[in-house]
């Protein structure tokens, strides 16, 4: 039961990854790509890590740290990238 759940979470995470990464190809603006990337990529990565956590609970401190890092840093990173690219991006 737990095995199915963890594999399901990982597959969902990979689907999220593809969903967030495919808009990267194409001629959209940086902010549009950043939006899809930061939302779908972070959710996908967190789903994968939760799937791993269900699979092997003995490594929980490491995986919990990974989830916290992802949640905080990816949000901050999205903000920083948007700020830098919009104020310096006269050329896009």
């Amino acid at each position: 039961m737990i095995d199915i759940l963890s594999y399901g979470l990982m597959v969902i995470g990979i689907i999220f990854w593809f969903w967030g990464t495919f808009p990267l190809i194409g001629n959209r603006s940086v902010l549009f790509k950043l939006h899809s990337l930061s939302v779908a990529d972070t959710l996908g990565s967190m789903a994968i890590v939760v799937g791993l956590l269900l699979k092997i609970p003995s490594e929980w401190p490491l995986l919990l740290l990974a989830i916290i890092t992802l949640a905080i840093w990816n949000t901050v990173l999205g903000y920083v990238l948007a700020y830098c690219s919009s104020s310096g991006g006269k050329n896009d």
Partner: protein
Amino acid sequence: MDSILIAMILALLIPIYEAWQDDNIWQKMLAFASIATKTSIMMLVISVLRDDWSIGVVAVIILSVGEAGLMLLAHLIKQCRLG
């Protein structure tokens, strides 16, 4: 488990292709952000797969350090474009 990793590698190939074909520096930075997250998550998956604690620790450190380095790089490139 192997097929999950192969799917992850395929997902990793998309931003690599994007970084190769787009000339705008911010698009490349976005691709790099995507690659940095994906590679460290892959490391984490492999560490759990092999039950190797040391690779897992390194993966988490690379995850946080890579994003910090990315922010530093973004600020430096912004300064270059303005000046």
